[in-house]
């Protein structure tokens, strides 16, 4: 049974998310309609004669007042219709559903690397502050964080795909490999479900380099935050007591030092998911990854307004959900909030 204050938190947060996403939609809608100049002309083509542009304007509903446009647009979105993409000439919703799972696959693999790597490195560094493992981790972390994800992408591609042809230089599947039948939209999952292990392995092999490029920065950031949390905890009185009790190192570090430090680290991981999502826009371009982010970039370069708005909204939804889940986890893990109602 969910406790009342947890339920209240969920409801309050849910309302907040809806409100914010609505606000976001207004913002991005206004930006997309007001700033670019003349969307009708862009849709019709630069050299189209004026009357074609006027026709296009009527067709896209751009002759109506802004708030009416917004209401139309919003009601469509709530039905799941994001409008028409002037670039792909398809429904934007269709495009999103097509490409989103591909990016999500990449993001999941990235997060696995980022979180696991971050925890391992962070704990090692935090257990021996200012000694050799910590110093090595900190220096490596600085460099990894300072190098933008797209630079990582280019370098990794250069080293491991072109100079040493270990990994493929791009794409999700090798040419000539037929994609699996579409069940969920997740290539790797679909290939597993339909028994095509070879496709699964091929897709996995293609995922490694982009995922590594994306994850290095956030992996090191997670490691740093965990490490500094552990060092903070180490100075606390109760850790002095663990030392005075003569508890062995593994108990002190992995149990008593890690748990208090893990909680701010988990909060930081939500931010790293956001960073990875944004960096995906660049990394997918470098690796020609047929995902949602690359679709977004194409839309942005071509002023495909409906697609741009859709992309921003989808990113906003995913980010809000990720933050919400992380906050719930933290609420659960921290005994002070979890047991708050049971104080003597």
């Amino acid at each position, binding site marked *: 049974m969910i406790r009342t204050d947890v339920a209240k938190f969920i409801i309050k947060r849910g309302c907040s998310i809806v409100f914010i996403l609505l606000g976001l939609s207004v913002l991005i809608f206004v930006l997309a309609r007001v700033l670019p100049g003349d969307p009708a002309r862009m849709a019709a083509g630069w050299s189209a004669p004026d009357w074609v542009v006027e026709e296009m304007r009527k067709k896209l509903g751009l002759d109506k007042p802004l708030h009416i446009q917004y209401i139309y647009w919003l009601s469509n979105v709530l039905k799941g219709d994001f409008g028409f993409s002037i670039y792909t000439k398809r429904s934007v919703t269709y495009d999103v559903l097509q490409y989103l799972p591909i990016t999500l696959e990449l993001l999941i693999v990235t997060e696995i690397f980022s979180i696991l790597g971050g925890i391992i490195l962070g704990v090692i560094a935090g257990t021996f502050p*200012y000694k050799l493992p910590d110093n090595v981790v900190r220096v490596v972390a600085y460099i990894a964080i300072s190098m933008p994800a797209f630079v990582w992408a280019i370098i990794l591609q250069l080293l491991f795909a072109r100079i040493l042809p270990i990994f493929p230089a791009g794409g999700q599947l090798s040419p000539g490999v037929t994609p699996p039948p579409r069940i969920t939209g997740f290539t790797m999952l679909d290939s597993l479900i339909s028994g095509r292990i070879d496709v699964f392995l091929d897709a996995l092999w293609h995922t490694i380099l982009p995922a590594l490029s994306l994850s290095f920065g956030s992996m090191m950031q997670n490691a740093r935050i965990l490490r500094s949390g552990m060092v903070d905890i180490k100075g606390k*009185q*109760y850790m002095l*007591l663990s*030392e005075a009790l003569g*508890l*062995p190192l593994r108990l002190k570090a992995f149990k*008593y030092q890690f*748990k*208090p430090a893990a909680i701010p680290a988990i909060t930081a991981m939500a931010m790293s998911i956001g960073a990875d999502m944004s960096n995906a826009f660049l990394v997918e371009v470098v690796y020609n990854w047929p995902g949602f982010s690359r679709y977004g970039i194409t839309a942005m370069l071509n002023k495909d307004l409906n697609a741009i708005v859709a992309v921003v909204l989808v990113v906003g939804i995913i980010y809000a959900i990720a933050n919400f889940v992380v906050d719930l986890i933290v609420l659960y893990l921290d005994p002070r909030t979890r047991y708050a109602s049971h104080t003597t």
Partner: protein
Amino acid sequence: MVLKTFSLKSDGDSVEPLLRIKNLSVGYKTHEGVTKVLDNVNMYVYRGEKVGLIGESGAGKTTLLNTILRILPPNARVFRGEIVFNGVDLLRAKKNVLDDIRRSRIGIIFQDPMSALNPFFKVRDQLYDALRYSKFLDKNKKVDEKVLKETSLKMLKEVALPDAERVLDSFPFQLSGGMRQRVCIALALTRANDLLLADEPTTNLDVTIQEQILNLLRDLVNKRKLAVILVTHALGMLKGFVDRIYVIYAGQIVEVANTNKLFSNPQHPYTRFLLESAPRLTGEWRAKELPERIINYINPPKGCRFSVRCPYATDRCKTEKPQMIEISSGHFARCWLLRKV
């Protein structure tokens, strides 16, 4: 400077003390320089003897206790000295020897029960882990959960915790200050088979609870015949508890005597000031005014560190460190103004 090892045993045989601190000097490296907090501290504690350490805030009492168990922060520096416990120099002992002593010989109670327990784990976890690595249970043998539970409950009952089962199952923030301190005492007792270090154990508690905890400590210590170093800044606590008292000022031991002798015949100006400041039943306020001065540990005075505040300070006091003078048997004080009796 040698402190004569004076035995308390009347048969004249000189028995080796359980704990012997020799010429200990400890400081910290800070952004303003290196502080020299403890200056040539000498102290000894016999088996089963209860010793009090009194001084004001910042005098180095906690530093002293933490140095014994070697739980100092990384910016601490032990300049010189020896801490010999049961024949082992704790300052130079190897980690496994030190851990052995921490697990089964010396226990410590911290001042603030609020921060002493890890808020993320239940009392049960912390107590069980402490027991697993103590002398109570052989850590090589597979430890049974039932045995751990029984032992924990027994310990909690010994520190007069009602409803021990519920306490075990609680998180520290669910317990009151007094209860938490009792848990800390229980934890310390799993280790303290020889020596108990108590760093102002009642200072942060409600006044009504203070006496309860103190009485509890006294009973437990007497029952187990433990040696104790009780640190406090309130004199009254020591009377009726400890056998001998060390008075520390600014990292220097200024006087040491049996409890009765110290209260009846204080010699060092600081000790006298301490005793006179305590309000009496007669309602008189006999305290002399002492100007307040914050001690500068980075550049301490070359001589007696109390000379900065002492109303009787002479130039010699400020430049030369006075030696310990024997006032009477077992009673020593360090001041140029005293003459040998």
